[in-house]
């Protein structure tokens, strides 16, 4: 699988994303700087976590208007796969590729811990290596992961199976206690209607080998590879 990782000023998970993609796909991803206007033809473009442009104004707002983003939008328009993790998710909502917005955590605290996610829809490009309803462990580390969308948008996401991951407790229940940031409907990750763009707050790239404490994030990348075959 050919991939590219877009780096913005103050991205800080670009290296993790790069390493995860390289280890899992066996191919070195293209490194794209935010000022680049062209991205080679790849199977996947990844927008990594971090604090692009210092998160001044709003998280992801300035990154979403940077030159490389036009190429990301064109790739998505052609049906190419795009993922955004953490700050990358914020960029995708600011671009309008995904609905809703990510707000300050309800607790006002930066949350850095491993949480449980339920795979809500295992019939997608990004989740097919998991099974429906499977509960996986994935780390979160964010201050602004509180997913907000109006009721109509939430209903549409639910009805179309666009919710990929939800925060749950160990028993797989989407309770308020299991929700690290106050996201509506315990949403941790969503897709666009076409199913080729996914954004999520948790970091699957941080849990791909035993040295990191587990491999639950690996299935996310393997799903994308599966979907290309």
């Amino acid at each position: 699988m050919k991939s590219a990782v877009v780096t913005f000023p103050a991205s800080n998970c670009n290296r993790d994303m790069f390493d995860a993609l390289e280890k899992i796909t066996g191919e070195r991803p293209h490194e794209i700087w935010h000022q680049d206007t062209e991205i080679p033809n790849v199977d996947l473009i990844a927008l990594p976590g971090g604090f692009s442009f210092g998160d001044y104004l709003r998280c992801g707002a300035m990154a979403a208007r940077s030159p490389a983003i036009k190429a990301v939008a064109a790739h998505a328009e052609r049906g190419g796969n795009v993922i955004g993790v953490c700050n990358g998710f914020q960029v995708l909502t600011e671009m309008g590729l995904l609905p809703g917005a990510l707000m300050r955590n309800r607790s006002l605290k930066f949350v850095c811990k491993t949480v449980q996610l339920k795979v809500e829809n295992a019939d997608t490009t990004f989740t097919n290596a998991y099974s429906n309803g499977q509960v996986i462990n994935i780390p979160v580390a964010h201050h602004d992961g509180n997913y907000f969308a109006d009721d109509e948008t939430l209903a549409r996401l639910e009805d179309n199976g666009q919710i990929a991951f939800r925060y749950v407790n160990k028993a797989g229940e989407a309770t308020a206690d299991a929700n690290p940031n106050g996201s509506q409907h315990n949403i941790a990750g969503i897709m666009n209607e076409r199913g080729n763009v996914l954004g999520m707050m948790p970091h699957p790239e941080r849990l791909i080998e035993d040295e990191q404490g587990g491999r639950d994030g690996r299935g996310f990348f393997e799903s994308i590879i599966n979907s290309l075959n």
Partner: protein
Amino acid sequence: MKARVHITLKNGVLDPQGKAIQHALDSLGFDGVDDVRQGKYIELDLAETDKATAEANVEEMCKKLLANMVIENYSIDIE
């Protein structure tokens, strides 16, 4: 010409920072503050001299970057 832009969260959108401010005011003994909503204030110095054009330009800026129309409202004062 100066433009002053106020950006606030839409009604119905939870404002945890506003809630924290309210809580702090309460603990300082300021009673009777029913709700607090916090927002952003952005001041722009513009070369434009025509007020209507300046207002239209800043409106564009708000829609394209300064405000997130999913969760925020904006208001513009030009002088």
